[in-house]
């Protein structure tokens, strides 16, 4: 006998969830994060477009990288985020070792007076996949030093658990490689991470368009981080709006509790009481 389709489709756990009409706030490290959409600022072609996208996204937190000052350009990014009331989340993008990432986090803390860091330790130049060994080591040291660590990690539930055990305030599994726009390649692993996590799960990396964000939220992620999908879209502000609505729709669908998948149809109209204009003798 064939395996029922419901059993084969393990990507979305069954009827799950608190069906509430009023949503709850997202807390990370005891702080309310107003929007479940975190925006990355890299890849935008114009400052005006970035500003509009930030506004349209409704985000309350945006990532920045730490780079050498360029005396020829004013450093207006932090000013822009400050003006819009958006929390700066520094990242350690470009770091390939725990020690590089730790120094970058400490520089960011000094520059922006924030303990929060999106921890990235990259292990491969072509795929930008995280180096889990270095990542866990950096997370442990930064947590000990008082940082609120949000690690960008693979979609590996064991790695996510290790990071949580290291004291990270959230876990940020990738959907697919950074900037690839390939969406969520292993939804089942994301569902497993969500199931076990006792800290917020933020889907990070790989989003291509709004439906990917929707799926992430339907899988139970607490928030989504989007960068390239917005900044490199043809119309970044419009895509930022789409992402905002996708977060909202996906979150509501998750809370509403989706129906079970079926292999065959199940009529939604009852057969009872059907007219019978041509009765057979």
């Amino acid at each position: 006998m064939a395996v029922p389709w419901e059993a084969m489709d393990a990507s979305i756990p069954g009827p799950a969830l608190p069906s509430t009409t009023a949503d709850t706030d997202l807390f990370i490290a005891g702080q309310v994060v107003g929007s479940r959409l975190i925006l990355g600022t890299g890849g935008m072609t114009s400052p005006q477009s970035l500003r509009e996208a930030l506004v349209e996204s409704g985000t309350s937190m945006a990532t920045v990288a730490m780079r050498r000052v360029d005396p020829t350009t004013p450093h207006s990014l932090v000013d822009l985020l400050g003006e819009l009331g958006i929390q700066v989340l520094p990242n350690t993008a470009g770091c390939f070792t725990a020690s590089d990432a730790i120094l970058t986090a400490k520089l960011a803390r000094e520059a922006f007076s924030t303990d929060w860091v999106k921890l990235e330790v990259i292990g491969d130049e072509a795929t930008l996949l995280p180096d889990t060994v270095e990542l866990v080591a950096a997370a442990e040291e930064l947590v000990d030093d008082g940082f609120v660590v949000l690690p960008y990690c693979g979609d590996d539930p064991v790695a996510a658990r290790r990071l949580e055990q290291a004291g990270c305030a959230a876990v940020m599994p990738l959907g697919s490689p950074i900037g690839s726009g390939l969406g969520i390649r292993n939804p089942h692993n994301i569902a497993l991470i969500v199931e076990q996590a006792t800290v917020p799960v933020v889907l990070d990396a790989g989003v291509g368009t709004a439906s990917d964000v929707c799926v992430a939220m339907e899988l139970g992620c607490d928030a989504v981080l989007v960068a390239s999908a917005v900044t490199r879209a043809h119309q970044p502000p419009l895509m930022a709006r789409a992402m905002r609505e996708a977060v909202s729709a996906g979150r509501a669908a998750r809370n509403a509790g989706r129906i079970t998948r079926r292999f065959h149809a199940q009529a939604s109209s009852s057969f009872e009481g059907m007219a019978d204009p041509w009765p057979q003798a």
Partner: protein
Amino acid sequence: MTERTEVTVNGAPWTGLAGTTVGDLVAEWCTSSRGIAVARNGDVVPKSSWDATRITSGDRIEIVTAAAGG
């Protein structure tokens, strides 16, 4: 003859007067100290120590700030 201090700032050679502080360097390199952090030989120099920290020849100084990034 005035003594000089030769250091590396953000990967490039830089020469200044002996006694130059981290605070002096930031003032020269940046329009504002807001959002700026400095590492000297791989260690963060806290803002509160900038003016008291003199650079010495051979130092590797990094002056960083926020840049667009995911």
